[in-house]
């Protein structure tokens, strides 16, 4: 065990080494395998991040043990669907009961339904149409650790996200059975997890009624053809395609349809973005204030999975550029790649369209030129015409970091 730990510690050191400008030669990098994160993460994050496995998961990048916050390593994104055992884990509160499928009950109520009722899993699976869609689940704080200057919070690198096929029922079908009243404004979700102290606000979130009634918003009980892993919300979680994962309530046990704006720490204080800085498409009007608004839909973004940072090429050798792009569900229109640090751009080929909420693969190839360092960039544009940022749009919670992907390789 000690040997393994030393090995993992060395990995963290390796990431820091890259940051100091001393690029590791490619054989060392190949042997090194998984890095605990980009070198731009806070030094204390790199020092305390290790590859560790939660029960039922493969080793992921541990950011915090309790509550568990574990990140998906870069190389997993070579696959367009993120395997369940590699899917990131994010919790706010430390008490996380394992909810057995046979014991699960969902309470549907609130002041804006005619007929409150309780649902169990067999009924969810039998009495409603079963649907499946591919969608990206991305933590609002993904890439927070790359904010400049750094901001407090879980210091995520690039892997607090994943793409899966979610199967379940439409939330609107379940709400319809309860008879929503016309004054229904929001739907409030609660999950089975809670804090250690009574004084800690329970993690509850809400979405506007129009988003709850969107045909793509689901109560999912399956992920990539398997029951949801415990750490991703078993037995049932909310799926809100296009919106950040804060609304994708895990282990959901309660849906309340309400006529007044729901207020708690998680809605009114946390998960807010300043008004006017980002292109918010889906406005959450009942929760807006003069100065800020809840984070809602994701900004257009991409991630380069090939080449890897520091990879070496001979002059003339083909360089395979690959990656993934995603957005708020408008769909990816183009991805452009630059093989010269952003001076010129070529249009990448897009892989199969797996649905507008899914990761979209892209690829491009070029020949390595003269000796030296080459910055490879990727920039996605969606069907609304929104593109990634070249400069970070700083905000206090480190959300919406969609600065163009950049990888530096060495020719020579």
């Amino acid at each position, binding site marked *: 065990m000690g040997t393994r730990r030393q090995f993992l510690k060395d990995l963290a050191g390796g990431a820091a080494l890259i940051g100091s400008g001393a690029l590791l030669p490619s054989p060392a990098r190949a042997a090194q395998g998984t890095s605990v994160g980009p070198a731009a993460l806070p030094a*204390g994050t790199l020092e305390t991040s290790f590859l560790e496995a939660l029960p039922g998961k493969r080793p992921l990048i541990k950011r915090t043990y309790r509550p568990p916050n574990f990140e998906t390593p870069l190389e997993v994104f070579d696959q367009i669907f993120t395997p369940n055992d590699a899917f990131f884990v994010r919790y706010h509160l430390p008490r996380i009961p394992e909810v057995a499928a046979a014991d699960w009950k969902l309470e549907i109520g609130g002041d804006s339904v005619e007929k409150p009722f309780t649902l169990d899993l067999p009924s969810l699976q039998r009495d409603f149409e079963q649907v499946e869609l591919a969608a990206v689940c991305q933590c609002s704080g993904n890439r927070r650790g790359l904010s400049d*200057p750094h901001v407090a919070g879980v210091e995520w690198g690039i892997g607090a996200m994943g793409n899966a096929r979610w199967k379940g029922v439409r939330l609107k079908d379940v709400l319809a059975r309860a008879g929503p009243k016309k004054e229904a404004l929001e739907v409030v979700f609660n999950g089975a997890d809670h804090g250690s102290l009574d004084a800690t*606000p329970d993690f509850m979130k809400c979405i506007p009624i129009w988003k709850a009634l969107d045909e793509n918003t689901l109560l999912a009980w399956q992920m990539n053809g398997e029951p949801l892993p415990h750490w991703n919300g078993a037995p049932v979680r909310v799926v809100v395609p296009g919106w950040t994962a804060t609304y994708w309530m895990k282990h959901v046990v309660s849906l309340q349809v309400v006529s007044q704006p729901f207020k708690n720490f998680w809605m009114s204080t946390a998960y807010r973005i300043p008004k006017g800085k980002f292109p918010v498409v889906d406005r959450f009007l009942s929760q807006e204030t003069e100065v800020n608004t809840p984070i809602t839909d994701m900004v257009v973004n991409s991630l380069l999975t090939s080449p890897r940072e520091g990879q070496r090429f001979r002059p003339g050798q083909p360089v395979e550029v690959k990656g993934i792009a995603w957005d708020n569900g408008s769909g990816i229109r183009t991805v452009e790649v630059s093989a010269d640090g952003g001076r010129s751009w070529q249009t990448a080929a897009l892989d199969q369209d797996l649905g507008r909420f899914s990761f979209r693969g892209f690829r491009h190839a070029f020949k390595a030129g003269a000796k030296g360092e080459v910055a490879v960039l990727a920039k996605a544009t969606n069907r609304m015409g929104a593109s990634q940022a070249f400069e970070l749009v700083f905000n206090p919670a480190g959300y919406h970091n969609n600065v163009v992907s950049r990888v530096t390789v060495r020719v020579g």
Partner: protein
Amino acid sequence: MTALIVLALLSSSPAYPDENRVQLKEGPARDLVLGRCAACHSQDYIPMNSPFLDRKGWEAEVNKMVKAFGAPMEPEEMARVVDYLATNYGKK
């Protein structure tokens, strides 16, 4: 016998990663920090957020833990906790 029981436990229950792998630095008020913070979260939350918060930044974090999350701390204890964090995990 004890060894057998330990072995049985190890093989039957899923192994959780050991959060004590990350330990806070020695220093005055370390025990106080553990006593007031560790009920709700592992120690690694602190070094993860370093070394970029200055004293004001750590003060804001401790205030948030007390006011928003209900961490049980007297004002005098809050001052000692902030002092420990700023000294050991603060921006230099």
